[in-house]
C-alpha cells in the first residue's frame, strides 16, 4: 500500500528537481549569473526555496516575480504594450490582429539599448 502524501511528495520532488537541474545546466552552459523565475509555478514558495539553495551554491542571483503577477501574464503583455507605445511602436486597434506564433525572441524592444 502506498501512502498518498508520500506519492505527492515524490512527484513534487522529482518535478521540481528536474526544473532546477535544467536551469542549473543552462547557467553552466551559458555562463550567465542570473535566474529569473516567472510564470504560474513561480508562485510556489517551495520551488522558490529550492531555487534559493541552487543559486546560493552557484553564487548567482535569483529574481522571482511577485505572486500576484505570477499566474496570468496579462500584466506583462500590458506593460510591454505600454513600453512599446512610449517608444513609438503603435498599432491602430482596427488593424490589430492575433499572432499566435509571435515569440518573445522575435519582438523588437526599442526601449532597451
Amino acid at each position, binding site marked *: 500500500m502506498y501512502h498518498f502524501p508520500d506519492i505527492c511528495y515524490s512527484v513534487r520532488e522529482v518535478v521540481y*528537481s528536474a526544473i*532546477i537541474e535544467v536551469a*542549473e545546466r543552462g547557467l553552466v552552459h551559458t555562463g550567465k549569473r542570473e535566474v529569473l523565475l516567472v510564470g504560474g509555478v513561480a508562485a510556489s514558495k517551495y520551488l522558490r526555496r529550492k531555487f534559493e*539553495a*541552487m543559486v546560493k551554491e552557484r553564487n548567482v542571483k535569483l529574481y522571482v516575480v511577485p505572486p500576484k503577477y505570477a499566474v496570468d501574464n496579462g500584466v506583462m503583455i500590458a506593460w510591454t504594450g505600454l513600453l512599446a507605445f512610449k517608444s513609438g511602436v503603435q498599432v491602430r486597434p482596427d488593424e490589430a490582429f492575433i*499572432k499566435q*506564433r509571435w515569440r518573445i*525572441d522575435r519582438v523588437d524592444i526599442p526601449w532597451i539599448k
Partner: protein
Amino acid sequence: MRPSLNKDGGLIGLTFHGSNKLRLITAGAEAVIYEGLFLKLPSVFKVRISKPYRDRRFDSLIRKERTLSEARIIIAARKSGVHAPAIYYINADEAIIVMEKIEGLLLRDILDKLTDSERCRIFIDLGKNVGILHKAGIVHGDLTTSNIVIKDNNVYLVDFGLAKYSNEIEDIGVDLHLLLRAIESTHYEYKDVLFSCFLEGYRKVIGEAELELVLNKVKEIRMRGRYIEERRNRGV
C-alpha cells in the same frame, strides 16, 4: 557539499592520498571532473556532487543510478567497438567513476587548424563511431565537438553523462540533430561538408535504408524548432 573523496577504504583511497594530487579540471552542472593518476595510469575522476535542492534520499538515489548507468553504457559502447574511455573503477555510493584519460585534443579546439581533408577524415571516423553506437542501441545525448577527443588521428567519444539505451528513431534523430546544431553554431563555415563527411561514415555502418529513416526524422525534428526560417515563413 564537497564530495568526500577518501571515504572509500579500498582501492580509491590509494589514489586520493599522498603525493598523487588530483587536479580540478571542470566543475560542471552535475559533476566535478578531476585528473590524476589511478594505479599509475593517467585518469579522469568524475564525481557527481550532491545537490542541496534535492531531497537527500532522492539525491543519493539519482547520483548512484546515473553513475552506474553511465559506466554501464560506456562499457557497452566499448564492447561494440566505439572508441570511448576504459572504465577503471566505479564507486556508486560515492558517485565516482574513474576512467582512462584520453590523451588527445578536443575536436572543438583543433577543428579550425586542420586541412579540409583532415577535417573530412575525422568526421567520417566520427560517423562510423556514432553509427556503431546507435547500432548497439545507445544514444550519446550530448554530441558536441567538446565531447569528441582526437588522439593519434582517431576519434574518441567522451562524456556519456546524458547517454541512454534506446533504439527509438526519435532518440537517434535527436542525437544527430544535436550534432548538427553544434556544428552549425560553432563551426558554421564548414557545416555542410562536415555533415556530409559524417554521413559518409555513418551510412557505412547503419546502411542506406536506415539512414533515410533517420534523416527524415532529423528533418522533422528540425522543423519543430522555433527559430527555423522554413517554419517561420509558414506561419503568420
